[in-house]
């Protein structure tokens, strides 16, 4: 029962060791692969994923089945077609993909094989951030095991389907998580973003059709195939299918990560699972899904964590891993920290991003240091507006705008006090 309610994590071991291939198979692993190889057409697989309402877990929430359906199929398509698993997890406050890769690497690998089957992929890469050493070790071993049992390689399980899967270890930079920056990095270039068109699904990696999906997204795939779209939708409390890994960090009693039905209310995650605020501290706000989401406050805690629910509070679910701001921590300082991150990670391609983020970071640093000036808040507001989606080349700076403009809205007094009093009240 538990395994079904928590398809992604239910099979994991309590001691932190990885599920090896035998254990994975024993728990029903690679059955989805067998099922599609001997009975489903690629299009059917994609249709199943589409019907399951699986939306991308990388942050933007694009329908996975729809994305796959953009890939041209058939003998005339330029070869090879690529699948890339985005395992760059570098969004501050996000720590979900690491768990999936460290503890159940075969789940991801099977998901990727199924995805490749659906898009007629020939080569798959796992683009892993450098710092995840343990993931690298465990994925490498799992890949070897999967090759060994002919889940990968030539003529997989006698089906005629071939697939090569490779692990690529990144050399750092948040921009590698942005899917087109990732493609450039995989091509051995600077991870600047790419312009669309062409969309990766028509001309992506090395100019060939490419799908990029997040780790968690791909981990859902075998379960959908095994149990059906309807089952997957039913796991959720909302329109978006499935369960979701939700995390909480900050000064709560039990920071951590839980697999819960999609659409679980913020309050339930924060209070029931994370145990609420540490004694003596009060909640001032939280960013619900990684650094590039808007702050919400205690007024919004009953909203469901899904792709639509948080829009009511002007925010987004993002990666679903929330960072909590308590009343003992300075919102200006926290905002400054966030802007420092974005400024440092800007690739330097478009002006609002490389120029504006550095400015914002310096304004906030000045404010934190007691050197804020009249007009700084308005300038920050302007900068945040300047980074609206569409104004910049990729979504990095719009991501930075979200915490900045919401912090200026919810914690305006704090910003004003910093300027007025010439120092940070929390110092």
């Amino acid at each position: 029962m538990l395994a079904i309610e928590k398809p992604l994590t239910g099979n994991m071991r309590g001691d932190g060791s990885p599920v090896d291939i035998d254990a994975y198979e024993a728990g029903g692993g690679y059955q989805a692969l067998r099922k599609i190889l001997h009975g489903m057409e690629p299009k059917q697989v994609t249709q199943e994923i589409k019907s399951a309402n699986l939306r991308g877990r990388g942050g933007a929430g694009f329908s996975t089945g729809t994305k796959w359906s953009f890939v041209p199929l058939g003998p005339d398509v330029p070869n090879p077609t690529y699948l890339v698993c985005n395992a760059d997890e570098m969004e501050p406050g996000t720590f979900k993909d690491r768990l999936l890769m460290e503890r159940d690497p075969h789940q991801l690998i099977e998901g990727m094989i199924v995805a490749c089957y659906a898009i007629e992929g020939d080569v798959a890469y796992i683009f892993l951030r450098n710092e995840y050493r343990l993931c690298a070790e465990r994925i490498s071993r799992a890949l070897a095991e999967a090759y060994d049992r002919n889940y990968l390689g030539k003529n997989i399980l006698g089906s005629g389907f071939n697939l090569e899967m490779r692990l690529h270890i990144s050399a750092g930079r948040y921009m590698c998580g942005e899917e087109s920056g990732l493609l450039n990095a995989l091509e051995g270039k600077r991870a600047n973003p790419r312009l669309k068109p062409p969309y990766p699904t028509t001309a992506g990696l090395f100019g060939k059709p490419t799908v990029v999906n997040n780790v968690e997204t791909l981990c859902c795939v075998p379960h959908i195939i095994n149990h059906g779209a309807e089952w997957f939708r039913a796991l959720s409390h909302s329109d978006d299918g499935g369960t979701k890994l939700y995390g909480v960090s900050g000064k709560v009693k039990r920071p951590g990560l839980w697999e819960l039905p999609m659409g679980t209310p913020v309050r339930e995650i924060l209070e029931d699972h994370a145990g609420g605020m540490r004694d003596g501290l009060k909640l001032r706000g939280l960013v619900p899904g990684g650094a590039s989401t808007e702050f919400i406050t205690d007024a919004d805690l009953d909203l469901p964590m899904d792709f639509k629910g948080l829009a009511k509070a002007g925010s987004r679910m993002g990666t679903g891993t929330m960072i909590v701001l308590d009343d003992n921590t300075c919102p200006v300082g926290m905002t400054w920290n966030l802007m420092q991150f974005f400024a440092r990670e800007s690739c330097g391609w478009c002006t609002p991003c490389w120029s504006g983020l550095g400015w914002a970071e310096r304004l906030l640093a000045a404010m934190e240091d007691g050197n804020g000036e009249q007009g700084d808040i308005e300038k920050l507001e302007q900068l945040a507006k300047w980074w609206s989606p569409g104004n910049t080349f990729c979504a990095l700076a719009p991501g930075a705008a979200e915490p900045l403009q919401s912090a200026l809205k919810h914690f305006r007094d704090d910003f004003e006090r910093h300027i007025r009093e010439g120092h940070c009240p929390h110092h």
Partner: protein
Amino acid sequence: MLTAEEIGEIEHEAKNYPVRSAVTIDALQIVQRHRGWVSDEAIQDLANHLGVSKADLDSVASFYNLIYRHRVGRHVIHLCDSVSCWVMGYRQVREELEKQLGIDFGGTTADSRFTFLPVVCLGCCDHAPAMLIDGDLHTDLSPGSIANTLERYL
């Protein structure tokens, strides 16, 4: 000159890509793994081997924060300075590290034992603050635990 071992590893990785230049980032990491950092000489060696220009190679190398174009110490400390760690007391940990090492971010101790660098969120926000030393993860840091941790890296 690249060593035979370096060349072997680079060529092994190169097989993973349809285009030779795609191995650039792996190659930089391989050389760094062997030599500790990527010197101007290493750039020249790699450029020769891969048949790309030094400028093209350094353009890539200088983009990625985990490629070191300066000599680093025997051990590299990457302290997470992202938001969850910041909330959970990163500043005190950083101050303690600065005090014990006598250097700030970007610095290398006089005895070349440590290089101290910031790094983006290490994905263990539920155990913040966190840092890596030579790739080993250290979590739930507090100023009090720093001395003990450093002792393990000679």
